[in-house]
């Protein structure tokens, strides 16, 4: 029997020790799924030294060997302690695919470097003309000797400006139906012929990029899975991207923040904490949060056997992201005019100058803006509903 309370204590002790004020600050100032990159990398190294960087991985590949409940406890404690988010495209997304589809050489080469932070991965799926209709992607990989020659462009590649590796969906056969001619390639970002253009997001920060490939030579050994079987690899991965995330923890953290903001937001002679109208609205969101939590638990219970969450991950993704957006709106209602200033420098964890915005309102507008993307990336809310209609309802 695992002593879960004792485990939770040991996680707390570690976090208390390992999370420096700068790292916690980076966590507090996180306004999207990504934290300040330097802080995220520093945190990754600390977790790696502790052996806790990949909670979901099996022990043989460097995981800590925790069960599902320990993993949930760890995630929750990290979030609530304001640990920065580790860049997830490697360990959370590509890692499980490598274990499933990778050759021994690939596993041996990539997995340890992914854990240590030597390799920072980004995801090359979407293209300017292929968003929801991902299978229409055009970036091509043509075989030439022992290499593929890759030409095309990928967009919305988060963190490409910091990454040194990219996993890509590329077209290797144009003669068959779209899904059947796609392959999954692992590419070094410093390969000749690759250029990266940052994209400024609506909040003014750079989180995403467009990556251009101009006759980039990639060894055939970098193919993951079989040639022309990339679509099944990608689908497997997308389900992990959606289902691997624990929305309940994010929601709990947001709710905790909203309660604090309500106490600090004046309302007549008192505060929004005592405003029944606002509290009613908040309670409705809390009830939906409970429903989400118990749905996640139900799904996780069923997946305990190790199965892929499948179409149910679509349900959780829709509900988790849309509820998150609703909570952002509640925060906006609380901070009022303090949402106005767009001062990027104050969101830098190392910033120590004047504050044009009270502490409790610092990230609210940026979160409100950035979270609009949560129902777009990883498969839009529309695509998720289509998956539910097709796979669950059989329509």
């Amino acid at each position, binding site marked *: 029997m695992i002593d879960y309370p004792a485990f939770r204590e040991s996680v707390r002790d570690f976090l208390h020790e390992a999370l420096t004020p700068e790292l916690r600050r980076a966590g507090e100032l996180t306004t999207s799924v990504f934290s300040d990159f330097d802080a995220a990398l520093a945190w990754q190294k600390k977790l790696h030294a502790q052996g806790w960087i990949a909670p979901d991985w099996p022990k043989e590949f460097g995981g800590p060997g925790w069960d599902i409940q320990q993993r949930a406890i760890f995630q929750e404690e990290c979030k609530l302690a304001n640990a920065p988010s580790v860049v997830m495209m490697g360990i959370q997304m590509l890692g499980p695919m490598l274990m499933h589809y990778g050759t021994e050489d690939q596993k041996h080469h990539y997995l340890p470097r992914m854990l240590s932070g030597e390799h920072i991965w980004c995801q090359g799926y979407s293209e300017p003309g292929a968003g929801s209709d991902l299978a229409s992607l055009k970036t091509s990989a043509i075989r030439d000797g022992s290499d593929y020659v890759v030409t095309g462009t990928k967009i919305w590649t988060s963190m490409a400006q910091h990454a040194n590796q990219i996993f890509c969906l590329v077209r290797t056969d144009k003669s068959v139906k779209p899904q059947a001619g796609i392959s999954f390639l692992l590419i070094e970002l410093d390969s000749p012929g690759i250029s990266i253009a940052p994209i*400024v997001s609506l909040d003014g920060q750079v989180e995403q990029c467009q990556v251009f490939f101009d006759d980039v030579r990639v060894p055939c050994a970098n193919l993951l899975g079989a040639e022309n079987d990339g679509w099944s690899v990608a689908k497997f991965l997308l389900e992990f991207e959606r289902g691997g995330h624990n929305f309940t923890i994010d929601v709990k953290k947001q709710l905790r923040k909203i309660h604090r903001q309500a106490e600090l937001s004046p309302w007549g002679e008192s505060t929004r904490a005592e405003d029944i109208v606002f509290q009613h609205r908040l309670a409705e969101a809390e009830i939906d949060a409970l429903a989400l939590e118990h749905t996640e638990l139900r799904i996780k219970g069923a997946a305990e056997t190790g199965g892929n969450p499948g179409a149910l991950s679509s349900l959780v993704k829709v509900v988790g992201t849309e509820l998150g957006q609703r909570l952002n709106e509640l925060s906006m*209602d609380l901070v009022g005019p303090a949402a106005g200033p767009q001062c990027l420098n104050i969101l830098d964890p190392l910033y120590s100058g004047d504050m*044009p915005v009270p502490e409790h309102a610092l990230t609210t507008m940026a979160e409100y803006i950035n979270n609009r993307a949560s129902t777009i990336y990883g498969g839009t809310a529309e695509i998720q509903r289509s998956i539910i209609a097709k796979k669950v309802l059989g329509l």
Partner: protein
Amino acid sequence: MSDEKQMLRDSAERFLRDNYDFADRQASVNAGEGMDANHWRAFSEMGWTAMAIPENAGGFGFGLADIAPLIELFGQYLVREPLFESVVLAGGVVIAGSQAAQERYLPGIIDGSIIATIPQATAAPLMAASDSGQTRLHGDLQFVPSGGSATHLLAQVRYEEQLHWLMLDLELPGVSRSSYPSHDGRRGAHIAVDVPFEQASLLLSGASADLATQALYQRAMLVAAAEGVGAMQGALDLTVEYTRQREQFGQPLASFQALQHRMASMLIQTELTRSLVLAACKAWDDHADNAVQLALAAKAKVDAAARSVTQEAIQMHGGIATTEEYRVGHYFKRTALLESWPLHRDALIAEFIKRRHP
């Protein structure tokens, strides 16, 4: 609509279409400017700064219902310059003031040399108090919209147990501004005031100042509401245009019925909101009994409808809408900031409940 008013609308539409380029706007925003002085000059040359000023004071004497279509256009074109703050809001208080006050400030408002803004409805008034024989005006105003670009601030003052309004020159020594870029491409400011106070500088005092305060913030609601309608229209138009040309799964997005219905709902909300805002402006001009009730309703309706319409616009565009260089997200950001201007929606609804007739 009379010829004069139709001309205003047409010329405004033409001017904004030909001159208010979104890429130029963004270049100016990225250069740290909260407004464009050339645009401001053009607005006064075209007479827009004189619209709301009575004819006997050198203006056109247009009511809010006449101006609302222009305000909508400003919302649609994402205009940053605080024209209506200066002309309709601050100007409105000046017009309610003494003859001397009008002579002092109206020419500047009309010729554009005064760019005035106003504080949040919840802002605490400045205090005028005597200290060792000298009376000084002091206080802090937080989150003043366009406070970084304005030349003047219309400010409420507490002096000898009464509230008053005055026009504060923001260039005076003793006024310090900490300005910041705001998410709507403007520059807001926190303004700290510590200057000598002269009673003669007051525009309005006592009961007439209290009336002016109510009128000011009711007008501010209507101005914000009309701008919100324009932003909704802009977001809807772009969404329709984009989904017509964007193809996925071998067909334009606009051909999917699920999306068509959502765009139809956006249109329904935009038109409902527009009706309410125009009716509220008309009621305001006519001093109708329900004018205040309608102003509260109009602004509260815009806050909810603009939030949902601009969010839908982003969602239906997809990734492109989350970028700074694409226009649609800016409607979302502007309307998000309008939600708490000049007063938060929850406060408007609380007021609406109080004034509701059984």
